[in-house]
């Protein structure tokens, strides 16, 4: 039966990326809060919060991470080490590369299959959301004079997974901010 299509394919991609974010964060024990309209205008799609055991006095036990979330069906260029993603909005790039933000920011990109039916499979036994997302910190990335956007290299080692997320939170609790290109 044909159903009225309420969401366009790009909207569905976006919603799936949010679902991915929530699922991975929850599995890792982090809370995930969608950004409000004000935050969205500043390039924050969601805020993750992790709770960690106390360390020394300067260690944070409650760490927040602001996420700029993207989804794409375009096959990324793969140089063996990183996947390329074209970030269209220069303002978003500059928001992400700031070194003086109090709450760390990362870019998370979900690479979906090009074939739409393959995006999500559901059966009574399982729910499968295909492919995965990668993350990168653009902190300290170079200033680029462009109005059309820039290509970001997302390290293949930085899979946005529950384990990867926990490790990131642990680093941030020590105020050890990952920098662009350092992975």
């Amino acid at each position, binding site marked *: 039966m044909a159903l009225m299509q309420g969401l366009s394919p790009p909207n569905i991609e976006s919603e799936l990326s949010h679902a991915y974010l929530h699922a991975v964060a929850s599995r890792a024990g982090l809370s995930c809060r969608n950004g409000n309209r004000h935050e969205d205008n500043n390039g924050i799609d969601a805020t993750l919060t992790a709770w960690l055991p106390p360390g020394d006095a300067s260690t944070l036990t*409650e760490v927040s991470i602001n996420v700029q979330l993207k989804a794409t069906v375009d096959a990324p260029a793969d140089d063996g080490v990183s996947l390329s993603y074209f970030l269209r909005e220069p303002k978003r790039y500059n928001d992400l590369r700031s070194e003086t933000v109090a709450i760390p920011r990362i870019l998370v990109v979900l690479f979906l299959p090009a074939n739409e039916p393959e995006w999500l499979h559901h059966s009574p036994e399982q729910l499968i959301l295909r492919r995965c997302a990668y993350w990168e910190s653009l902190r300290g990335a170079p200033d680029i004079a462009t109005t059309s956007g820039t290509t970001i290299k997302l390290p293949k080692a930085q899979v946005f997974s529950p384990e990867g997320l926990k490790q990131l939170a642990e680093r941030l609790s020590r105020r050890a901010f990952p920098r662009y290109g350092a992975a």
Partner: protein
Amino acid sequence: MNLETLIPPTNLRDYAKNQGWVLVKEAAKDRLCVMTNPRYQGRQLVFPMDTSAPDYSEAVMLVLDKLAAIEGRITSDVFKNVLEVGDDAIAFRVTTPQPDDRSVPLAFAGSMLAGAQQLLLASACTVLKPQVHHPRLSRTEAQQFLETARFRHTQPGSFVLNVSCPVQGLDVQAPLLPGEADAPFVRRATVKLRQSLGELVSAIETDTLDDLVAATKESDSPVLSANFCEALTRFEDSSLKNSLEIGVTWAGSIPRPSSENRTSLVRVQHDYFPRIEEIRRELRSKEEHLEDVFPGTVERLDGEMGPDGKRAGEVVLSLLTPDGEQVRARANLNADQYEQADKAHMKEGAFVKVKGKLHPGRQPRQLNDITSFELLIK
């Protein structure tokens, strides 16, 4: 919303401290305020020390959301409290027996505003010079106190008048952590307001009004004044049969009075207002009929057309008594007098001079035996 200008980091820090959060000094090297709370293990508040941080607004909003979740409140309420952390905030809440009331008469709203101002002035004057009646509420410090007070947004769902009094609004030389005796003038005035209210309501509820009046009159430093009582009566509308709740939230930026909780609430039930008026009269027992010539203005015309085709009848005047008190009074004018009153009412800067007998009582008082009514135009 420009949180950088609305909520400085020190205000947010002071609010959190007041809730039991403790600053982690080691985080200062990262230019961060990191705060922990022994009541909430594992929770931390993190926000920049510098409003120039590019994500200052987002960081502060996140902290407000966290505090709201932890305290079980809505973020806007937390936001309001943080905004007022340096203020003693007084909320005057009117409740009526009719649950579906969605309005109050506009004149009553004006009366409440005037009552709130008078309460503040009376309390400030009692701090400066305790006496059972202040002939004038125009002492410079009291007026300055009133000028620092702010009328905040009202709250939805009921009729609430919110007034903020910045505790450091006048006494810039005050010590950083004052003891109660050395508290800033503004704090002393709000404490006095709370004390006066507490004593009054307690006396009504324990049926010890006579003792209260006697003690007040005999005291060298009375806490209560007739002006204070009069101000309270302005929060009553006889047609609404309303009650009044006055809540004081003490500023978080200085220690609160030792005898007080963070927020104190006193309820003045509808049936208390006549008793408060009695106390007012008792404290002004010297108040007698005053026969004199009073200058004043015409505030309202309520006359009716007579059989002679001329309007006459009741007017409301604002009169200046010989001891400088401004008093509202009703007067019944004949047609010629009413015509003068009408001209005075319509002309900016026009005063009247009326000779009559001003009776004691709640405002508007009664002005009778009018022997002359004269229009004075500037």
